[in-house]
């Protein structure tokens, strides 16, 4: 139990750091509030190490914490939209057992960006933001792949903590 609590803390702390980096590195898209999905890596790790409900708790907690610290209610809404969609997609992909960690991560990265774009379309009441979809699909794939590769290295080590 103690170890599990430590693992939770570690994951939330990691996610927090990633969220901070996301604020520093803007995505090359003209829609304010849209961010790289680096913190997705933590949701991904949590999905492989914890029960789905706990992984969901970790990702929601990090969005709330990061939102309160670095963001505004608006950016928090973007994170929530992207974060929850990518959680759902990654969970389903993991359960299907058809993809490796890297594949699950790519699915998460892409859906994270689609979630944010969908919210932008709703907030701005225009479908014109679809214009950015190709950029977001590609950046989602690239960040997803990078995060997935890092997670593949980290997971065996973290599993020992469990």
């Amino acid at each position, binding site marked *: 139990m103690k170890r599990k609590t430590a693992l939770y803390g570690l994951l939330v702390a990691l996610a927090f750091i990633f969220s901070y980096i996301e604020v520093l590195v803007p995505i090359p898209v003209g829609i304010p509030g849209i961010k790289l999905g680096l913190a997705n890596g933590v949701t991904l790790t949590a999905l492989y190490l914890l029960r789905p409900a706990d992984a969901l708790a970790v990702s929601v907690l990090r969005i709330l914490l990061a939102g309160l610290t670095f963001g505004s209610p608006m950016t928090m809404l973007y994170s929530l939209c992207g974060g929850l969609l990518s959680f759902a997609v990654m969970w389903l992909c993991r359960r299907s057992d058809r993809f490796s960690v890297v594949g699950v991560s790519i699915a998460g990265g892409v859906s994270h960006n689609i979630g944010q774009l969908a919210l932008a379309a709703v907030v701005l009441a225009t479908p014109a933001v*679809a214009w950015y*979809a190709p950029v977001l699909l590609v950046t989602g794939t690239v960040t997803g792949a990078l995060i997935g590769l890092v997670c593949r290295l980290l997971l065996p080590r973290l599993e020992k903590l469990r």
Partner: protein
Amino acid sequence: MKTGRKKGDIWLVTAVLAVALCLFLLLWLLPGDGAAVEVTVDGAVYATLPLDTPTTLDIPGKNGCVGTLVIADGRATVTHATCPDRLCVRMGPVSRAGQSIVCLPGRIVVTVVGGTPAVDGEV
């Protein structure tokens, strides 16, 4: 890594990139030069300006944000803005049908319309 999973990964990446490529062709390359820009504030149309007539327009957005839209050389640019992030200014000029400039704090959207059929259409 199990080969079945690796196969799944490759399928996934291929599918995503294929969709991205299609959208890119559809939204970026096919549309020709637009005929006008439509300016909306908080979802409501504020003005529609032809791209072939050089003008300057101050757009009063939400939250006290005012964006200055300049039309010149068939392109529309937000040159000044009083919004906190000024991302709308950094987005540069737009001219192709379907392109847009977005100011989130001011809820201002400038969309290029007309010309060869705009992909987004009326929704």
